[in-house]
């Protein structure tokens, strides 16, 4: 039986460079390459550069949370391997598609995209006017993803909510209003409150 087909991963910002080279090493080292896939680069960017959690990042890439965690783990493993063994990293391949946003020119009424993300767009490619509207759907999508999976502590008695601090169990904090122990929002313990 053939394996299940991989879901296409969405890469919104392709890397600016093709890879990395180690320096200050014996000549026989650093010749073999570690192939870092585009999706792994994107996972690392979302997680450690944009500081999203795995849930939010998985929404951005259009894959499930467990799949995202696997991609991320593989990225870390490859980078560690390259560091320890003094290998080159080349960023290539992977099952991805690149997504760009649509711009709109109000002067000639056309829509266009910008395939070269490194450069900012400030004039319309058709009529060269500067009256263009930049897209903001991506920010909206990102905000939605961030909001939807934001970790919130909730008080099971009065419903008071505050943003969860990473690494601090919610149950250790007390509600400032009614002094009962806080719970993680969406966890089985606070379902009773939600159903009430």
């Amino acid at each position, binding site marked *: 039986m053939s394996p299940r087909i991989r879901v*296409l991963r969405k890469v919104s910002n392709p890397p600016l460079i093709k890879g990395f080279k180690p320096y200050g090493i014996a000549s026989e080292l650093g010749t073999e390459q570690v192939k870092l896939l585009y999706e792994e680069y994107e996972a690392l960017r979302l997680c450690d550069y944009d500081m999203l959690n795995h849930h939010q990042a998985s929404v951005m890439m259009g894959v499930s949370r467990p799949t995202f965690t696997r991609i991320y783990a593989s990225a870390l493993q490859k980078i560690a391997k390259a560091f320890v063994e003094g290998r080159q990293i080349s960023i290539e391949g992977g099952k991805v*598609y690149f997504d760009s946003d*649509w711009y709109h020119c109000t002067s000639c*009424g*056309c829509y266009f*995209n*910008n*395939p070269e993300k490194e450069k900012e767009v400030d004039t319309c490619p*058709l009529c060269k006017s500067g009256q263009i509207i930049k897209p903001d759907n991506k920010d909206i999508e990102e905000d939605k993803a961030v909001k939807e999976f934001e970790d919130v502590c909730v008080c099971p008695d009065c419903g008071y909510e505050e943003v969860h601090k990473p690494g601090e169990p919610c149950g250790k904090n007390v509600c400032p209003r009614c002094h009962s122990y806080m719970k993680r929002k969406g966890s089985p313990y606070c379902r009773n409150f939600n159903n009430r």
Partner: protein
Amino acid sequence: MRVAIASTGNSLESTISHHFGRCDYFVIYDTESKAIEYIPNPHKDAEEGAGQSAVQLVASRNVQKIISGDFGIKIKPLLDSLRIQMIVIKDNKKKINDIIEMLNH
């Protein structure tokens, strides 16, 4: 820089096509030499994959921009990875003449 325009005919008076993959002619316009080339679309009546074949044909001419009335859903990721810019003109009464004039502006 070369620009491809999806057209309904092979003259400057013809209008822009509203479907990139199934347009009648591709107009390849070179903004430096001002040369215009008409290529008939061989995949116009293909059952499927007209868009992909059209992209291959146009990409082989080294274009950097494609102007059309609309693009199919499979084309966008393909062109994004080839780094070809897409320009959509919703006004389907625009003539090839007008577009070339706008490009020369």
